[in-house]
């Protein structure tokens, strides 16, 4: 057989992949070095690193990084801690586990916009059930969405509420994949439940945990819909996340060059956080390597 035939199969696929993945990226990269306005349309003009310089000098950008990081880090920690606890409970078949199994997964299936709309009603400062609940403790009309700290807390709550089920699902699958005999051996050897968790379950789940947290971190950084619906980034820009900031630049000012530059900076931010995280996770998993 003539080996040249293989090129017939390989190249079209390769080119297709190249065109649909690399081209947009490269195009966006070139655009990020230009000034392009759609409204009013102005011809592209090469400006070098000006877009990047402008953004880096903009306090709003740094504020958005801070806001995003706060929301993501705190909510992912909560998601993991609560998620793993619930998964453990489900795995050990606490009473009511089967009911839980179904209801607990529901939030994950909702569109974030719907979640945000529901949350907006729940956290209404006068009419919402959250207000009624806090009124019981004498805390009336808390500014859930209008005070920066409260608003961030609400966003963290919603993120946690929506994405903990994802963590539960994966951690439960992980737990059920662990070899039962190992735990029986530990039980026969009179190892307490807590030590079994600390010394056996947790280390054996570490690689999975690292992956789950990584997925949630990367996904979390893209948070936009809940913020958009709930606070619109306000009050002021105190809850503006990176993606919302980019959206505002792109679709309110129609400055495409600036938005592209912002996207690449966003990519860099995610890579920086991701790398830091992976380095830390690596250290931990290596200690318990099998």
């Amino acid at each position, binding site marked *: 057989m003539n080996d040249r035939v293989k090129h017939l199969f390989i190249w079209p696929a390769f080119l297709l992949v190249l065109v649909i993945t690399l081209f947009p990226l490269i195009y966006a990269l070139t655009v990020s070095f230009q000034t392009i306005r759609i409204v009013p349309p102005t011809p592209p003009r090469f400006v070098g690193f000006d877009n990047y310089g402008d953004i880096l000098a903009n306090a709003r950008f740094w504020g958005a990084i801070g806001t995003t990081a706060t929301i993501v880090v705190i909510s992912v920690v909560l998601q993991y801690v609560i998620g793993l606890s619930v998964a453990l409970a489900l795995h050990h078949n606490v009473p009511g586990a089967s009911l839980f199994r179904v209801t607990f997964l529901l939030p994950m299936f909702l569109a974030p916009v719907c979640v945000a709309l529901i949350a907006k009603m729940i956290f209404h400062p006068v009419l919402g059930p959250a207000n009624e609940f806090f009124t019981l403790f004498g805390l009336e009309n808390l500014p859930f969405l209008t005070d920066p700290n409260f608003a961030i807390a609400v966003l963290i709550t919603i993120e946690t509420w929506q994405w903990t089920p994802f963590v539960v699902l994966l951690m439960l699958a992980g737990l059920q994949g662990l070899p039962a005999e*190992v735990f029986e051996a530990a039980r026969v*050897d*009179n190892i307490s439940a807590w030590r079994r968790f600390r010394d056996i379950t947790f280390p054996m789940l570490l690689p999975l945990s690292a992956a789950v947290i990584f997925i949630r971190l990367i996904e979390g950084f893209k948070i936009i819909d809940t913020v958009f619906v709930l606070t619109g980034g306000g009050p002021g820009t105190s809850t503006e996340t990176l993606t919302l900031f980019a959206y505002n630049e792109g679709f309110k000012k129609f400055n495409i060059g600036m938005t592209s530059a912002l996207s690449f900076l966003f990519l860099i931010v995610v890579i920086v956080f991701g790398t830091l995280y992976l380095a830390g996770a690596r250290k931990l998993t290596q200690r318990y390597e099998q």
Partner: protein
Amino acid sequence: MEHIEFRKISKSYGAVEVVPPLDLSIEQGEFIVLVGPSGCGKTTTLRMLAGLEETTSGDIFIDGENITDKRPGDRNCAMVFQNYALYPHMSVRDNIGYAMKVHGAAKADIDARVEEAAGLLGLSEYLDRKPRNLSGGQRQRVAIGRALVRQPQVFLFDEPLSNLDAKLRVEMRSEIKLLQRRLGTTAVYVTHDQVEAMTMADRVVVMRSGVIEQVDAPITLYERPANKFVASFIGSPSMNFFDARIENDQLLLGHQRLQLAAQEAERIGDFGRVIFGIRPEHCRDSEAAAQLTFGVEVIEPLGSNTLLLGTVGDQKIMAQVDPRFAAQADAPSTIPIDMSAAHFFDPITEVRL
């Protein structure tokens, strides 16, 4: 002295009774082997003793103390599993010493005992390896080491050797037996391999669908099986069985007549219908030998002896004969049967006569 006692313990899963009420008592320092075909409830019985499975009814005593409702950790047993069940992320050293460490033993003590166990089991050079870098035999040794260092009252083994290759199995079974004898710890060992059971046990418990068929020393099981099931299960190649009749001190097998040994003749000389059992290795000459002719179909020379496979009438027979025994395939052959080693069972109850 009695060490472990099962009193009418039973186990049901829903409506299915896997182990009907069962009684068994085990002496201090004894090596007991539970043996039986797959699914007969050996593992279930062992796990009830370990506390990993709740009993449906009945009580278990260790050292006179009722431990039926105690947690597995409070029974002072150590268990070795078929799939090793090692902690995959811990080194051999940590695997062996883990329980001691959790229970607050001093580091020097742990090290000393781990080293000692490792030396005993030939694991000294592997102490810092992770389980996945060990062979199956080494892994099982680690599992045994982990049980050893705890110095438990009772060792529990659930088919610890069935994942190992034949040669290693033979080595390990004598090692385990030797270790147990040296330590003097009571051991309960589950296997479906009758050779393992015979070679290791002080007493063998033969089980069939949850019921204990016989509890005896290996040689007794072989020489005086309590019923047809035990007779067929113990010994390899396994015993031949024939539907036959006993009349006038003679065994009627088809139209052949075999003279019974003197003491048998006295006991059951006119019994009527019986199941006649003879082991292949007892097709040999002796004072009480009778001659049996059968059609040889296959000859299997094994070196030290030869197996003849054939039929008597329409019943299958396997005979173990001298390698130079003159026999031809597809021709009748006459072999001696040592009637003093014959077994007779009731045709209905299958109980030994």
